[in-house]
């Protein structure tokens, strides 16, 4: 078989390795959103869907919900633009999935039987971070088209709010990332992650959050606004404009927006982990071990535990997954804690507070790095 054939198989395996956990986590997040909010609000949360005698703490609900959404009537309003109405959910869901292809979920790893090291990343683009910005900004089209095509006043208001908000915070998002790029000197995602392994002082790894604390806060806030999640959920602010751009959607078309929202939560969490929390790094573990294998001493004994390269790779993949899930849970916690901003407050926070701060952050970071 020619070598490009192998390459295709390798990429395909990695795509599956990204998408399957991503969608699974998105489904689990719909459960977690309900269960975690129930925990915060002294309720029980979902616990009714069952297979025979098993309810599994409500874990069957995501499956039941998916099936239900597929078998619900797919209502398209008469005066809606049929084509755009169908296109919008695709444009909302697809970009959020695509973004994950440049986020490294593990180090380069040596797998027995394959001669060369395998990078645990679907596509190691030289302009990775820029690619993320480019693709994630496509999501605004899905939202804007959904609101426009529905021919509903609430949808239109939601779409207007969403587009203005996402535009405004994209600038802050980009500027906050500039700080990180200055520190690590690359826009290639694999290098951005790899350079966070170099020790700072006192044995601390130079994770993004330690070298760019302000950048982290800016990035986090801007990304929350990009996600349109509480406290920035004005585009779908229930008590104001009912459901915003979702108003005229039903069945799985609505479900796609819903899934996209939770996929985006994981994407944001993955981005935060990759840029600010050392990606797949485990403190004290050298990413190079995934290539060579390494023997760790077991404390209080003279024995050592030999773990092969693929073992370390797996371990670091798990570390990445765990970090992402912790990030997801934190983001959910934020969602259920804060009240909602008013629309003009969202705007003035972005333009009058975060944007000047982000510009300042770029300059200060530059000055410190060059010194």
């Amino acid at each position, binding site marked *: 078989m020619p070598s490009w054939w192998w390459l295709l198989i390798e990429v395909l395996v990695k795509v599956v390795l990204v998408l399957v956990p991503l969608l699974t986590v998105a489904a689990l997040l719909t459960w977690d959103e309900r269960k975690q909010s129930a925990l*915060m*609000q002294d309720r029980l949360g979902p616990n009714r869907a069952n297979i025979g005698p098993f309810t599994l703490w409500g874990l069957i609900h995501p499956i039941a919900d998916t099936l239900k959404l597929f078998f619900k009537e797919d209502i398209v309003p008469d005066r809606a633009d049929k084509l755009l109405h169908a296109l919008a959910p695709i444009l909302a869901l697809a970009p959020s999935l695509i973004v994950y292809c440049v986020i490294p979920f593990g180090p380069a790893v040596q797998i027995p039987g394959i001669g060369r090291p395998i990078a645990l990343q679907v596509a190691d683009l030289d302009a990775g971070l820029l690619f993320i910005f480019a693709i994630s900004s496509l999501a605004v089209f899905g939202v804007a088209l959904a609101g426009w095509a529905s021919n509903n006043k609430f949808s239109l208001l939601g779409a207007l709010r969403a587009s203005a908000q996402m535009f405004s915070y994209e600038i802050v998002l980009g500027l906050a990332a500039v700080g990180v790029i200055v520190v690590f000197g690359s826009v290639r995602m694999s290098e951005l992650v790899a350079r966070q392994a170099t020790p700072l002082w006192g044995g601390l790894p130079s994770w993004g959050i330690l070298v760019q604390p302000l950048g982290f806060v800016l990035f986090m806030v801007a990304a929350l606004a990009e996600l349109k999640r509480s406290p920035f959920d004005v585009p779908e602010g229930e*008590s104001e404009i009912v459901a915003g751009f979702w108003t005229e959607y039903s069945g799985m078309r609505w479900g796609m927006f819903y899934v996209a929202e939770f996929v985006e939560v994981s994407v944001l969490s993955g981005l935060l982990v990759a840029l600010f929390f050392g990606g797949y790094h485990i403190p004290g573990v050298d990413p190079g071990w995934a290539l060579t294998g390494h023997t760790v001493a077991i404390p209080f004994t003279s024995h050592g535990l030999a773990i092969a390269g693929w073992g370390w790779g797996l371990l670091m993949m798990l570390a990445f997954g765990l970090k992402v899930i912790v990030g997801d849970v934190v983001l959910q916690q934020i969602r259920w804690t804060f009240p*909602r901003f008013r*629309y003009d*407050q969202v705007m003035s926070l972005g333009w009058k507070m975060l944007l000047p701060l982000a510009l300042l952050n770029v300059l200060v970071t530059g000055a410190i790095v060059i010194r």
Partner: protein
Amino acid sequence: MLLNMGPHHPATHGVLNFVVETDGEVLSRAVPEVGYLHRGIEKIAEKVGYTGFMPYTDRIDYCAAMFPNQGWAMAVERLLGLQVPRRAEYLRVIATELCRIASHFIAVGSMAMDIGAYTPFLFLIRERETFNDLMEYLCGARLTFNYVWIGGVSRDFHPGLDKKICAWLDKLEPIIDEFDRLISFNPIYIDRLVNVAVLSRQDVIGHGLVGPNLRASGVDFDLRRDVPYSVYPELKFKVPVGRGPFGVEGDCYARYYARIEEMRESIQLLRQAIAGLPEGEHRARVPRKIKPPPGECYARIESARGEMSYYLISDGTELPYRVHVRTGSFSAMSIIEHASPGLMIADLVALIASLDVVAPEVDR
């Protein structure tokens, strides 16, 4: 753009309709439309008689059903010239003040919900559950009580209920403080409410606003103190007036915080009333057939939403000739059109929530 907010809108909590004129965010006008929940309760009174009307009054304000009960009982007693036993008056005060707290739970909780924080709402709903249990002990019902009867109350205290109420009150005070920390002092929440929809004294008096809405704008008027009824003159309580810890007089935050303060005052009132509960009958001797002499009377009480008054004309038969109920929510609706120009859509939601409009009370 002409936008209908309501009748099936998440922010209207019931069926209200606001026809909103907007350019996208800022309102040029919001016109409230009433009548979606009109059940002709006043007309029903002319058909079912004095005693029979009591359960219907529950439905005037289902968030705090004790107040319309008491207002109706007072109007009829006044017409009959009936003296209510002191124990019954105390029991009425206890029942209505409990209701005031529970009603303010809904008011401030649903306000937090309208601003986008769902957790505080459920936080207070949990406490309201305990209140419902207490009410079940008191009168057997959880929502529409029919507890206050003409001439007294339907039944005496369940043994040990006073201890149960006191235990709940002890728990409640820290919970209100905790609620303050949870949401009232949240910076986003403060930003959303402070300086929003400021109503001046002229505005609120001119539109006939009552209760906490009136007092939040700096008008020091409380029926319990200024036009005393029942046994309120024997009890000590403060009337919170003016601005809250943030913002200015008459803004949404002042109206919101007035209710929080009122809950605290009601707790004090309840403690005094339970401590001072006299022995005696819980109901006066009332003729089986209530036939007031011809005449008219006006009874006003301070409900959770402000002044609620009954105007009653009797023609000497067993059926009232005419009954009119005046409620706080109705006049509160009237100010929305005046206050709305220049607000944003989100502010309108805050304004409606801060006025504590309860749909059945508007339309009756």
